[in-house]
């Protein structure tokens, strides 16, 4: 499968298939189902400087071809990650990228700085787009200015691959992408979840404890794909595409639209082996279409 290799800045991927933050735990949860070393990378759970209890239950609602979540970045904090989780995952034969969140720029910087010291963490993904936390989170991702600011600050303390994850809840995602590119992001990843809502008509209450939550799954794919294509045409840094990928065909669509790599999120819940299947599917597609390298497919969409 040599032809599946691709780089995201300095990050070398054995293939473009990765798993999305918050949907694949620390990888360990999936060992029983698949071979983690088949993946290009794993984006681990959203990690914050301080531990977070997350939002109250209920945190989930099923929707047509998708789901809403309102987890709210529950995690034990970066120090716990470093001392208790990192040792168990550092030797996985794939790229372990940490997804970093915060409420203030200082939080992001401090969290990134601590992760910078971890040998086997080749990069981080700045989550400036989480719709499920009151302070910060998505607010950073919906203005080009604050998105640029947080990128700039983290860039100073983090020399390895810095990926910034963009929010789809904006009028023009390319503005945000350009702002973070200008401040030194090595790549952008998109999309995070779309802000949505569900109501239980029996008790006339919101289904989620937080009223609104983040929508993901196949339902968002057309929107995500459009944003990837727009962003690919607006920036020079690599784009990592995601949003509703549930098959290798979907992955090819994202790559044609301009994704150098893709992430699979919600669909891991439906088929814990999906990412492996997507790797094989892409490999086959390249062979059948006699394409030498996955690189030739990135952004290869033909427009008359």
């Amino acid at each position, binding site marked *: 499968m040599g032809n599946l290799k691709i780089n995201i800045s300095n990050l070398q991927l054995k293939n473009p298939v990765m798993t999305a933050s918050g*949907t694949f735990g620390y990888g360990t949860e999936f060992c029983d*189902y698949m071979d983690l070393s088949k993946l290009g990378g794993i984006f681990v759970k959203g990690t914050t400087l301080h531990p977070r*209890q997350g939002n109250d*239950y209920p945190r*989930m609602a*099923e929707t047509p071809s998708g*789901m809403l979540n309102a987890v709210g970045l529950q995690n034990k904090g970066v120090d716990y990650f470093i001392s208790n989780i990192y040792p168990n995952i550092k030797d996985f034969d794939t790229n372990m990228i940490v997804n970093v969140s915060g409420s203030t720029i200082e939080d992001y910087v401090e969290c990134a700085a601590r992760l910078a010291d971890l040998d086997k963490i080749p990069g981080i993904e700045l989550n400036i787009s989480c719709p499920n936390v009151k302070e910060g989170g998505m607010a950073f991702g919906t203005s080009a200015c604050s998105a640029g600011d947080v990128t700039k600050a983290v860039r100073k303390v983090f020399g390895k691959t810095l990926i910034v994850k963009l929010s789809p809840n904006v009028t023009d995602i390319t503005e945000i992408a350009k702002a973070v590119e200008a401040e030194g992001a090595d790549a952008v990843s998109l999309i995070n979840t779309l802000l949505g809502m569900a109501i239980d008509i029996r008790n006339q209450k919101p289904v989620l404890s937080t009223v609104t939550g983040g929508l993901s799954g196949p339902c968002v794919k057309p929107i995500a794909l459009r944003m990837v294509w727009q962003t690919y045409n607006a920036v020079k840094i690599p784009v990592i595409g995601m949003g509703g990928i549930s098959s290798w065909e979907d992955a090819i669509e994202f790559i044609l639209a301009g994704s150098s790599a893709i992430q699979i999120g919600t669909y891991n*819940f439906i088929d814990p082996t999906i990412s492996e299947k997507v790797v094989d599917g892409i490999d086959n597609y390249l062979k059948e279409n006699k394409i030498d390298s996955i690189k030739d497919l990135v952004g290869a969409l033909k427009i008359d």
Partner: protein
Amino acid sequence: MLDFTVKENIQLNQTYFLIKLTPKNGEILTDMEPGQFVEVLVENSPRTFLRRPISVNFVEKDKNLLWLLVQAIGDGTRKMSQYVEGDVVNLLVPLGKGFTISGDAGKKSLLVGGGVGTAPLLYLGYLLKRQGQAPIFLLGARSKSDLTLLNEFEKYGEVFCTTEDGSFGEKGYVTNHSRLNRKDFSMIYTCGPKPMMQAVAKYAKQNKIACEVSLENMMGCGIGTCLCCVEKTSDGHICVCTEGPVFNIEKLTWAI
């Protein structure tokens, strides 16, 4: 993740179905704890996107059969209720942590189930009996027809019933059953609607009896990654799908 073949699907009443499955390619069923569950991939059901959690109802080791007791209440469970022999169903199995079984044959265990919450108690009762115990079942339902598999329960212990309409057993809720007056239990296990479980937990607490409950929080993944199924516990939010679904009531923060 394993494909199973439907061997039998028996309609027990208007909405309850007993589905017996065996691994499609003859794999031997792994050992399962009572109270563990499976995540069913429901195909051909446009409104069912996520898998559906269903308790292990019983394991017939010699026939390599897994039993699921399913109540058809929505699109997903309705589709399951239509399974016919030969259908192939993909499961994640077994998931979660089940009931704790003590090796002490002298223990007197009470198993309290309500509605489809009786499901995990069958296999639990079987195993308790195998340990030498004489478990006591207390099963409640709205009406007689909702009390299913009674002949199965009777194989493993004494069975007491309540129905809300009085059509079978004592009239009322399980927690009103006269058998509870004796308070001679060393352990209580319960599964059913939350108000019922809370009433049972209260009884257990008041009478200083150890008690385990099986929660049915809504699940996104069933394998500990989505963090959607959390229950507030003395250790903070923890995942019902991996740390539970069975919990000792001491661990929960229920206001009882």
